[in-house]
């Protein structure tokens, strides 16, 4: 469609734009946002996405609690977050408008489907009788509001297809996307290809694909011909390292990482889980990969899932289970079993806002202490946390490597924000990823000692059933060193407790040091972990641009910590720890290193805004 891009209207170049699509949860906003992202990715922009949807699948139509949103920031520069402020919003209905308008920057673009701003719909989302926000000058004067009769225009453009009103109305999101494509000078071909592929599979309704394509084009031509928009915007491609790129979300990256890890370990993988938001996409992804020898099992409950993974590990598979906070709580006792049996187990926890059921579709980082300490007895586990959607790939491989190398459970703390968010990812060269060494002993002349130790890793041997001469029992009762026999001996128990802890600590020897971005020494170190990397890094960069002595460091390994952490912490006057919780990492850092670390905390079901974070650090500096 490039030939259409030259018009009389002026074109403004921008570094980065954050767009939010919002509407009813049945309006197809996730698909629309996803398509905009794909197109921008192929165009060469850097991007980061934030899908935001309710837990209710189809909440009553037109209500505020049924609003589904998708935010994407696309840029010609290197970006790490989906953007604090929305530069352009598309609202398919008044409820979407109402819920999201406060996030739009002053002077930002707001495109609304004015046909939906009816008296009935306005009432449904709680506006007072006789009031329409579109007629409220105090409100509309803050933004550049464009009123487009998308429902009517979609119907008109598809009238001659002879299709029913319901099918036609379902194409409104593509009409909206067409407008936005025109406004931001994006090519249509990737979405057309997608629509043809996706709907083309529906053999019973082949015409659906064509209708959607037609609506998309109609929206685009509306932008071009209707002269509603005085300016078009252009965001040039970003400068990325050469290579083949794809878009990836955190949960997709976990799936690919696990498959790659199984291949690197030359070992089969069993993944057992119970459906839970926001972790279910991991089993959805793996269940499609049976031709990789991946075994997936939807268990009867969370406990069954983790126990199946542990059983599979005993028999020689890589045992993996995935869940979210409430499920991690249910798996507690079984993770303790894996600590005791000393079997490799990976537990993926895609954190969400708690406690209890909490806000299932909203993000949080409040399971750190649960992962670290939430088990009976002295029960240490390795804990890792990916820092971005694409990092979920690398850290999944790391989790498997550490579990196998040290024969112990690894808890992997992802979160809803990076699990569902997406970014561009340069597809790695798998040959650069080292193999994961798996040693299964075979029969020897001496009696087999199931709890003998590798002097380097302190791991016990991973002997698997089916091998003659290595018959042995593992159990959850305390065991005698080396033989593994049941033991209640006080000296032995003390020794074993220390051994299990030392084994986990040994992992520090094979993990990378904590890296610092910014000055080597200075006033403030922002220490983060997990999914807040994007916001903290961006805020740190901004603060340095403002002249402040601020560095950032991000932990991907939480137990054990990278070996150089204490050194790094000692080089800054103030350690500030931003977290989406009430201060969990801070508590550990304070306790372990006797440092009076300062917390920057929020629990709003959302990641940090760079603005907020910057302001709070500035306040700290002034203080």
């Amino acid at each position, binding site marked *: 469609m490039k030939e259409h891009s030259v018009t009389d209207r002026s074109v403004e170049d921008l570094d980065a734009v954050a767009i939010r699509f919002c509407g009813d949860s049945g309006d197809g906003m996730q698909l629309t946002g996803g398509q905009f992202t794909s197109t921008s*990715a*192929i165009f*060469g922009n850097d991007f980061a996405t934030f899908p935001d949807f309710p837990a209710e699948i189809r909440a009553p139509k037109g209500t505020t609690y049924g609003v589904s949103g998708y935010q994407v920031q696309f840029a010609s520069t290197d970006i790490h977050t989906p953007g604090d402020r929305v530069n352009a919003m598309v609202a398919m209905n008044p409820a979407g408008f109402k819920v999201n308008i406060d996030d739009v920057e002053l002077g930002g673009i707001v495109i609304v489907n004015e046909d939906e701003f009816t008296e009935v719909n306005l009432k449904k989302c709680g506006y007072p009788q006789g009031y329409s926000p579109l007629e409220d000058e105090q409100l509309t004067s803050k933004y550049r509001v464009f009123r487009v009769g998308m429902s009517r225009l979609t119907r008109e453009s598809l009238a001659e297809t002879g299709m029913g009103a319901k099918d036609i109305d379902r194409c409104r999101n593509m009409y909206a996307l067409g407008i936005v494509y025109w406004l931001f000078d994006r090519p249509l071909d*990737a979405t057309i290809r*997608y629509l043809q592929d996706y709907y083309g599979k529906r053999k019973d309704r082949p015409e659906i694909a064509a209708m959607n394509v037609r609506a998309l084009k109609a929206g685009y031509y509306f932008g071009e011909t209707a002269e509603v928009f005085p300016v078009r915007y252009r965001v040039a491609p970003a400068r990325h*390292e*050469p*290579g*083949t*790129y*794809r*878009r990836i979300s955190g949960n997709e990256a976990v799936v*690919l990482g696990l*498959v790659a890890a199984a291949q690197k370990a030359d070992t089969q993988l*069993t993944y*057992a889980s119970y459906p839970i938001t926001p972790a279910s996409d991991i089993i959805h992804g793996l269940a499609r*990969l*049976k*031709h*990789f*020898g991946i*075994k997936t*099992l939807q*268990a*009867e409950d969370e*406990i*069954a*899932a983790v*126990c*199946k993974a*542990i*059983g*599979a*590990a*005993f*028999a*020689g*598979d890589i*045992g993996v289970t995935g869940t979210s906070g409430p499920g991690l709580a249910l798996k507690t*006792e079984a993770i*303790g*079993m894996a600590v005791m*049996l000393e079997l490799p187990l990976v537990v993926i926890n895609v954190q969400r806002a708690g406690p209890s059921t909490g806000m299932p579709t909203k993000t949080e980082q409040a399971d750190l202490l649960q992962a670290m300490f939430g088990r009976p007895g002295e029960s240490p586990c390795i804990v890792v946390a990916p820092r971005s959607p694409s990092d979920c790939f690398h850290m999944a491989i790391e989790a498997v490597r550490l579990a196998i190398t040290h024969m112990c459970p690894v808890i992997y703390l992802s979160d809803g924000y990076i699990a569902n968010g997406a970014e561009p990812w340069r*597809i790695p060269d*798998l040959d650069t990823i080292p193999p994961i060494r798996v040693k299964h002993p075979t029969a020897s002349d001496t009696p087999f000692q199931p709890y003998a130790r590798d002097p380097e890793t302190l791991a016990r041997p991973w002997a*698997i*059933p*089916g*091998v*003659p001469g*290595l*018959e*042995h*029992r*593992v*159990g*959850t*009762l305390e065991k005698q060193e080396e033989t593994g*026999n*049941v033991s209640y001996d006080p000296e032995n128990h003390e020794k074993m407790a220390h051994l299990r802890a030392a084994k986990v600590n040994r992992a520090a020897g094979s993990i990378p040091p904590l890296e610092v971005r910014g000055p080597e020494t200075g006033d403030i170190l922002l220490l983060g972990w997990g999914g807040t990397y994007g916001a903290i890094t961006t805020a740190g960069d901004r603060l340095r641009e403002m002249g402040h002595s601020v560095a950032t460091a991000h932990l991907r390994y939480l137990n054990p910590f990278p070996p150089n952490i204490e050194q790094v912490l000692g080089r800054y006057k103030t350690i500030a720890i931003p977290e989406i919780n009430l201060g969990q990492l801070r508590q550990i850092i304070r306790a372990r290193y006797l440092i009076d670390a300062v917390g920057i905390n929020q629990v709003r079901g959302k990641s940090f805004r760079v603005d907020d974070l910057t302001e709070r650090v500035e306040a700290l500096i002034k203080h």
Partner: protein
Amino acid sequence: MTTAQPPTPLPTYKPKDFASDQDVRWCPGCGDYAVLATVRKTLPKLARRKEDYVFVSGIGCAARFPYYMETYGVHSIHGRALSVATGIKLANPALEVCVVCGDGDLLSIGGNHTIHTMRRNVDITILLLNNRIYGLTKGQYSPTSEFGKVTKSTPMGSLDFPLNPLAVAVGSGCTFLARCIDVDAPGLGSVLQRAIEHKGTSFMEIYQDCNIFNHETWFYASQKGSRPDTTIQLEHGKPLVFGTDRDKGIRRSDCRLEVVQLGNGITEDDLVVHDETDRTLAFVLSQMHHPEFPEPIGVLLADPSRPTYDQLVHDQIAEAVKKNGTGSIEDLLRDTETWEVT
């Protein structure tokens, strides 16, 4: 991972080959000893290698079982033995996995897994050592204790109606159901052999005496004097006859069963003929309770027609490989829209 069968012939095992070097620590006189001895005696009769057995248990007195077997074993956590066993079977279907647990383990805290393991028909053998009491925690009532049972936690009598393990198993779609008695070594041994050989979930309810906290709870069925009149030995294709003089039988009366005295015109031809393939009959038999009825002993149901879960999982993998070829990770990473940056 499957175990390749080595070319060497199957070794000849003796019961002591299956005994680990650990001292057995059950209370002297416990019914578990009898079961352990029978299991060790039975395994040498089966065409399986020692290294292919995995004994899995949960928590409880019975759950110490794996420590005493010179096989692979996992003593797991309370209630979860079947989940661990399912994971083992999933990873390596070539293994012979046996689960030994008590009534609290399998029917109370682990009840959920019992139901779901059976409906999936995972190829494992379950030995339920049912003593109708919590022994390890020193004598609280269990899910199979009788209504009104006076224990430390129920001084005025238990208000829970007991659960019927065999009826639950029938309802859960279990494909092999049997009942045995701890001290009946020949009966237990022959059923165990069949249970292990059965492809699918085999469930054996074993009446087991806890001589400390619930002594004699099964004596009506286990003692030689009373046993012929209080139990009925099931044999496929044979009429349901019982009694010291084998002069009583079980007859259908509408949809129910009734005990009849043979003679006076009633012959064996009038009696129910046991059919191990009849799930409805298995349910009806599971409802025969002492003292109204003799309690069925032996195999209630053996249905080899359903494929096992572990087999189906591996079939799907084979099918996926056949359809798509063995997965290539390089392709998988690019199995979406990609773009080049130069």
